């Protein structure tokens, strides 16, 4: 298994003005992780944890503040976001967006949307060849040919989602980032799309970074999972392990908050987050655990020393002074 993507000490700070003073919002604060070829890694976190920012850093639509990103051992972190669109590596890292309605140009037919990626990112030039590729891709994602000439407002949610997926895979990227791809879809359609993604992953040999706040969905599709909170990774490990034996209090709270909990898990009501306000991501205290105030297990040590992500078992890392069970 070789390394497809490596993120090293990734940092992204946004300048903000608070009460006329210049401060920084620590959206992503020192992330380290990797994705291997053919692997599906899940990224779990709630709103404000920085996963959208991380996704944009990885797809290079946003510039880094600090840190490195290595793709196939090539450093891509320094490629400017503006230059990435025309970079030869653009075709290797693609993304499926959360809201299929918002991510399709309302004035382009499905065919035009998919063909654009072909024309701009591949070597095909003849329109006959491009059309053939578009139709082949549509078939791969289960989109009937007749639907290709429709506009987004004439397509259902599931069909639009398929167009979004087709557009992303048409260049056969090695890394596909999926930003909550089924969040905007009805549960009746969710299963087909997830099964489709699973099939494509195996057929086309892609690696996935599957971003979601829905633990149930992540568990179905992912080999490994990263849990993010306020700009940091708090836990990582094989998906089944993390969900059935969660170590970090935040992961435990996530699982306990699920209606019905995850079947076979060990979280309970006592794991739920206690009622404090989440800490602010603006200029956070560097020597304090970010979950303090909501963590059911907070102590003085947590106030004085920020826990570091460290390996506690084979392939398992946690950032907590008092990880459960391990």
């Amino acid at each position, binding site marked *: 298994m070789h390394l497809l993507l490596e993120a090293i000490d990734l940092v992204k700070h946004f300048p903000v003005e608070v009460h006329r003073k210049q401060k920084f919002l620590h959206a992503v604060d020192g992330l380290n992780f990797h994705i291997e070829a053919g692997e599906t890694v899940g990224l779990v976190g709630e709103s404000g944890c920085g996963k959208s920012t991380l996704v944009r850093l990885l797809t290079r639509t946003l510039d880094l503040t600090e840190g490195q990103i290595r793709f196939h051992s090539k450093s891509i972190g320094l490629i400017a976001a503006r230059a990435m669109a025309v970079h030869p590596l653009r075709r290797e890292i693609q993304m499926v967006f959360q809201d299929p309605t918002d991510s399709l140009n309302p004035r382009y037919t499905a065919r035009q949307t998919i063909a654009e990626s072909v024309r701009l990112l591949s070597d095909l030039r003849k329109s006959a060849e491009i059309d053939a590729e578009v139709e082949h891709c549509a078939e791969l994602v289960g989109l009937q040919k007749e639907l290709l000439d429709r506009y987004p407002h004439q397509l259902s*949610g599931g069909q639009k989602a398929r167009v*979004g997926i087709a557009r992303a895979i048409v260049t056969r990227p090695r890394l596909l980032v999926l930003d909550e791809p089924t969040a905007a879809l*009805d549960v009746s359609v969710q299963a087909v799309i997830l099964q489709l993604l699973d099939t494509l992953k195996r057929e086309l040999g892609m690696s996935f970074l599957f971003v979601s706040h829905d633990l149930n969905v992540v568990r179905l599709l992912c080999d490994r999972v990263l849990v993010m909170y306020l700009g940091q990774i708090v836990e990582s490990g094989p998906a089944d392990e993390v969900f059935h034996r969660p170590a970090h209090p935040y992961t435990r709270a996530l699982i306990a908050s699920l209606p019905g909990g995850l079947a076979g898990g060990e979280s309970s009501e006592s794991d739920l987050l206690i009622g404090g306000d989440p800490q602010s991501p603006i200029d956070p205290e560097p020597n304090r655990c970010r979950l303090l105030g909501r963590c059911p297990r907070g102590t003085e040590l947590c106030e004085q020393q920020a826990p570091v992500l460290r390996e506690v078992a084979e392939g398992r890392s946690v950032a907590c002074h008092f990880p459960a069970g391990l």
Partner: protein
Amino acid sequence: MDSSIPAFASKADRPSAWAGRWNTLRYVVAENPLSLVAAGLFAMFVLLALVGPVLAPFDPLASNVGPPLSPPTLAHWFGTDALGRDILSRVIVATRLDLGIAVAAVSLSCVIGGLLGAFAGYFGGWTERLVGRTSDTIMAFPLFVLAMGIVAALGNTVANIVLATAIINLPFYMRVARAESSVLKNAGFVEAARLAGNGEIRVLFHHIIPNILPPMTVQVSLNMGWAILNAAGLSFIGLGVRPPAAEWGIMVAEGAQYIVSGEWWIALFPGAVLMLAVFCFNLLGDSLRDLIDPRRRT
């Protein structure tokens, strides 16, 4: 979530795009029957602009085709003016000039203002500041006075009227284009376009601008009436088209001095037609807005 949009079982089920548009058209006309009137008037004006000179019963520039200052008769439906010219013919022929000036000015304004606004809204930064200050500067003047100033400085030609009208209308297009594109730049499909390999300029021209066209189109149709009035106004005060050219504004100016002495028809007919033209375009603009942008329906 839009599972309420029906998936069509077969191609035969799918209503054609035209059927949808026809229904919307019927609805708009039903809500506001005047829009049919406006459409009819618009067709008439376009016809007159295109083939007016052929339809005019008399040569608009020829004097003494009838007794001077004669009221409307069967021979001269709109009467004659002080030089014995047939007013009907002059009004018909003036359509081409007035509409032509308005169309030229609005097109110029729309394209330049739209592009500047789109750049400003999309790129922000100093582009936006520059365009913003330009727009503010123009709008700081009473617009008609500014037009007067431009024509007075550059000379009384049709080209300068077009230029002046175009300049004073720039801010409206800049504003609409800037507002729409600064909202659109955060849309999901814009980011998707970048991921598909579109550089920034391509994103602007292929994704942003096509999507700001609907509100711009509405702005154009609402602006036409104003542009016609502008051109006529400039001519009325002598800063526009020069005699003996037939133009509505000049004709109203020429006729104004005769109202007191009782020859009301010389100013009234050109004035009425001018009013009808502006009314027609404003109404058309409203209907177009209803058709194109249902959110803004009044």
